[in-house]
C-alpha cells in the first residue's frame, strides 16, 4: 500500500521527525561540543550535546511513521494556509529541558523581550528571572537561550530585540547547571 506523500516536501523532515530523545538534547548528528569562539559580542556558551540515557537510542530511532496521504483529514486549503503561516510568520520552536513536548510561537506577536519572557513563563509555568548583561538570568533555575542564524547558542536578551527576531531559529530553555554556560 503506497502511502507516502509528496506534500510534505515543504516541511523540514528533520524538524517534524518523531524522535525518542527529549527535546533539548542534541540531534542525531554526532556533533562534538563546540565552543563559540568567533570574535563577536556573543557570549561564549558551552553546548551540552551529550545528554545521557536516551541518546544512543536517538540515533537508531526509526523515522516517524510514514506520512499518510490525506491524514489527519484537514482540507487542502487549511493545510496550505498552515504551511504559509509557517513561512510568513516567524515561528520558532521552544523546548524546555525535561518537557516532553515542544511549543511553537510566533515572534511577531511580541513587542519585546519582556512580553516574550512573560509568555514563556506562562506557557511553561516557571519563572525565568531577570536579565542582566553581565550575569545572565539570576534568581531562577532557568535560562532562555536561542540558536541564531550562525548556529550559535546565545542567551536571550543579548542582542537588540529586532536583531533577535530576525536571527532566532529556535529557543531552548535550559535548566539547572547547564544553564550556567559562562
Amino acid at each position, binding site marked *: *500500500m*503506497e*502511502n507516502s*506523500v509528496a*506534500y*510534505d516536501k515543504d*516541511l523540514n523532515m528533520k*524538524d*517534524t*521527525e*518523531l*524522535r525518542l530523545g527529549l*527535546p533539548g538534547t542534541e540531534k542525531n548528528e554526532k556533533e562534538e561540543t563546540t565552543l563559540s569562539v568567533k570574535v563577536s559580542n556573543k557570549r561564549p556558551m558551552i553546548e551540552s550535546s551529550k545528554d545521557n540515557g536516551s541518546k544512543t537510542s536517538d540515533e537508531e530511532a526509526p523515522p*516517524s*511513521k510514514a*506520512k*499518510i*496521504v*490525506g*491524514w*489527519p*483529514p*484537514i*482540507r*487542502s*486549503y*487549511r*493545510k496550505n*494556509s*498552515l504551511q*504559509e*503561516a509557517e513561512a510568513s*510568520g516567524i515561528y520558532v*520552536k521552544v523546548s524546555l529541558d525535561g518537557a516532553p*513536548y*515542544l*511549543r*511553537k510561537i*510566533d515572534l*511577531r*506577536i511580541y*513587542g519585546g523581550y519582556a512580553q516574550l519572557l512573560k509568555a514563556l513563563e*506562562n506557557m511553561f509555568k516557571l519563572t525565568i528571572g531577570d536579565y542582566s548583561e553581565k550575569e545572565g538570568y539570576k534568581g531562577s533555575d532557568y535560562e532562555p537561550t536561542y540558536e541564531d542564524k550562525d548556529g550559535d547558542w546565545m542567551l536571550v536578551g543579548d542582542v537588540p530585540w529586532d536583531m533577535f527576531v530576525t536571527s532566532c531559529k529556535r529557543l531552548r530553555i535550559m535548566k539547572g547547571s547547564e544553564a550556567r554556560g559562562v
Partner: protein
Amino acid sequence: MMCKSKKKKDSKHETNFMNSSSAFPDEVLERVLSMVKSRKDRSSVSLVCKEWYNAERWSRKNVFIGNCYSVTPEILTRRFPNIRSVTLKGKPRFSDFNLVPANWGADIHPWLVVFAEKYPFLEELKLKRMFVTDESLEFLAFSFPNFKALSLLSCDGFSTDGLAAVATYCKNLTELDIQENGIDDKNGNWLSCFPESFTSLEVLNFANLNNDVNFDALEKLVGRCKSLKTLKVNKSITLEQLQRLLVRAPQLCELGTGSFSQELTCQQHSELKRAFNNCKSLHTLSGLWVASTQYLEVLYPACTNLTFLNFSYAPLDSEDLSKLLVHCPNLRRLWVVDTVEDKGLEAVGTYCPLLEELRVFPADPFDEGVAHGVTESGFIAVSEGCRKLHYVLYFCRQMTNAAVATVVQNCPDFTHFRLCIMTPGQPDYLTDEPMDEAFGAVVKNCTKLQRLAVSGSLTDLTFEYIGRHAKNLETLSVAFAGSSDWGMQCVLYGCPKLRKLEIRDSPFGNAALFSGLGKYESMRSLWMSDCKVTMNGCRFVAQERPRLNVEVINEEGGDDSRAERVYIYRSVAGPRRDAPPFVLTL
C-alpha cells in the same frame, strides 16, 4: 371556496385532467405548494399523484443536487422549468484530503450551458467541490442578467480573473462568497471591477484570498453598498483599514477581520474601539489571522450579541480566549484552533452555556513533537458547561472511552459527532483498549445522531454498536478501523437512513461490499479507498445494479486485481461521459 371547474392556464401547462375528487385548480395548488420549502416535503408532495407532481415541479424555485453525476442538466431542466437557485455538489468529500486526483471531473460548465438556455432567470448558484474555470465564470456573468448570488466552497480551477468578470458584469449581484477554494490569486484588481454605479451587494466574502486587494476600491464599495450585511476580508487588510471599513458599515451583521496585529498609535487604537462599539448588529465574527493580544479587547463591546465566533484561523491561547468569551454569553457556535488548549475549553464551558456547536482544529496536525493541543479533559469541560451541544468536530491526540461516555451523558442531543484522534489506530491512552466503547456510548445515548466520524483503534464491535443503535444515522466516516467484513456489514444492515458512507484504509472486502447491494440505490454514495475490495467485486456490483455507477480510480502500475479507490453512487444519468482515463466505470 372550492372550484370544480378546472381553469386551463396558458400553454405552459400540460393538459391535465382533474379528478372530480381533486378540488383545487392548478394555480391554487401551485400557490400552496410554493410555500412548502423543505426538500424532503417537496419530494413527498411530488409522489402523491400526477397532478401534485406537476404542480410541485412548476412551483419549485430551488433545487439541491448532492451529487452532480446523479442527474444530467437536461433531465433537471426538463422536470423543473422555473428554477431560480441551484446548489450543486461535485467531488466526493475525500477529495478535500487529496484522495482524488486532479481533473477528476465535476465541471460546472456543461450545467451552465444548459441553464443559459433553460433558466435564463437564474439568480443563485451555490457550488461545493466543483471544478470551475474563469471561462465558466465569465459565461455565467454574461448569461444570466438577473444573477444575484454566487457561493463557491472548496472549488478549484479558477482565478481572480473569473471574479473580475463576475464583478464587472453581474449588475444585480447581492452575494459573492468565496470560501476555501483552490483559487489562483493573480493579485489583479478584481475588486475594482465593481462599477461605480453598483450598490446592491449584501454579502462579500473574500477571506481566503491571499493577495492584497485594492483597498481604495474596497472602501468605496463598502461605502456605497448600504445593504451590506456580511463582510469578510482577507489577511491583507490591516487594523487601520478595518477601522475605516467599519466606520462605513456599522450595520454589518457578519464580520471577518483581516490580520489583527498592527502597531497602532493610541489614537488609532481608540478609533478602532469606537468603530467596534458602533457595530451593534454583529452576530458573527471571524478572521483574526494573526491576533495580537493587546488588540483583542477592542472586540469586547461587539461581542454581546455574537452567536457565531469563527476563530479557526486564529491561533489564540487559553488566556486570550477566556478573556474574550466572558463577553460572549450568547454564543451558539464556536470554531477554534487547539492552541486554546484544555484551559480555553474550560472557559467555553464556563462562559457559553448556550453553545450548540464546537469545532476544534489542530494547529500542528503534522508535527508530532509540538505540544499537544486539546485532550479529553477539555472535551469533558465543554460538555459539562454546554448541555445543549449538538455538533462537535474535535481533533485531538489523546482520548479515553470514559471521557467520551461522560461527554455524551452530559450532552445526549448530539446530531453530529466527529471525533478525530490524530494518530491512526490509537487506543484509549489510559487503558490501552480500543475506542469501541466510546462510540458505543455515542450511538446508545445520542438517538438523534445523523452524522458520525470515528477514529482511534476500533474493532468490529464499534460497527456492531452503530448498526444496532444508530437508527437515524445518515453519514458515516471511517478511517483505519474495523477488523473484518462483519463490521461494515453491521452498518449496512443496521442503519436504515444511511445515505453517505465513506471508508478508507479499513479491512473491508468484497463480502462487505456485497452486503450493501440492496441498499446502495437508497444512498447517495459509497466511497472505499485502500480497503480490500477487488476489481472483480466491483464488476459484480456493477453487473447486479445497473442503476448504480461503479467507478474505480487506480494508480498507474497498481495491482490490477485490487480496487484502490471505489466510488459507487446512484444515478439516473447513466455512466459518466466525461470520465478521465484514470476513472474506470465498470
